[in-house]
């Protein structure tokens, strides 16, 4: 996959968050916490991760999911591939 910019990754994540958890794309920013700010519960987070793996061609193991607290964390993880 061609290298994606942080903005492109964040936009892709926003699409996933909207579809899986009904999050308004305008609310998706690096500083936002999935659980506290975007109301994504632990199971919805798994759905987001599974969809992100498919979309961005990365592997996000369960152990890693707990470290992805904010949108910015997830963008950085996906950016590193």
């Amino acid at each position, binding site marked *: 996959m061609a290298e994606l910019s942080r903005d492109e990754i964040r936009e892709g994540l926003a699409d996933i968050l909207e579809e899986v958890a009904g999050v308004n794309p305008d609310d998706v920013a690096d500083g936002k916490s999935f659980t506290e700010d975007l109301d994504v519960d632990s*199971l919805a987070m798994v759905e987001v*991760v599974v969809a992100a793996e498919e979309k961005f061609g990365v592997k996000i193991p369960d152990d890693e999911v707990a470290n992805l607290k904010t949108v910015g964390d997830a963008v950085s993880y996906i950016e590193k591939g």
Partner: protein
Amino acid sequence: MSIGSRVISLGHYQPEKILTNDDLAKMVDTSDEWIVSRVGIKERRIAAEDEKVADLAVRAARQALENSGHGPGDIDMVVVATVSAKDVCPNTACRVADELGIATPAAIDVNTACSGFEYALAQADMAIRIGSAERALVIGAEKLTAVTDWDDRSSCVLFGDGAGAVVVEGTDDPELAISPVVWGSEPSMSDVIRIEEDVPYIKQAGQTVFRWATTQLAPLIEQVADRAGVKINELAAFVPHQANLRIIQGIAKRLDFSEDCVVAEDIVYSGNTSAASVPLALSKLVQDGNIASGAPILLFGFGGGLTYAGQVIRCP
């Protein structure tokens, strides 16, 4: 000896006592809203202190036997699926047979946790196919509240007690025969659901189980339909293990069911009852009368082990 076996009757039993989400909110830090949104459960049934797994099994089995039109003398095999029976010898199957007056059956307990009923049904089906049994009682029975950690708010909201049973007998009609079981396990993932000697309560890694169930099981369920020679969109009903409403919906989303296919969601009123959940949900579904006789119903159990098993049966 028959070319196969078929389900001829069903029965189920749930204890009288209902535990609602509001009741749970008085015991641990939780709420009706939290539980319904996370797992889709509104209430569950709780067995009495002195009610054992065998007692629940007997109630369901007696109803299935009555509905079959046969008597205890016509049964020559009893298989009980359970992960929560505290008594290990005699096994639950012998206790059930004795209570019902079934004199000399082959009597087996099967423990594959939440897929236990499908494994048990496969045992009965094979025994009938090879001529070692003619008519079997297959039961899933659980008292999960006896292995529930009531201080663990993430798990104690999930579980309930109950039992479901079927009578299975030989058939030479391939259309009606139970399909060959598709079964297996993921032993390398065993640690994600446990009830062990040092911690004798159900402990699970919820996110890992959720990911496994919602991403790995749909293709296995398609295999079950393939082995039965039935298309997914021809199924009249889908009765998966009632683990969590979001798992059931997550799996269903990946399968091409017809609009008329009934997807069992008994978990809403019964909670997760492990090996009892499929026969319990199935018995209620058939009792409601919405499934035509002879219509294909896909059963699929999955859980601790991580084990899984499924087959297609025809509505009695």
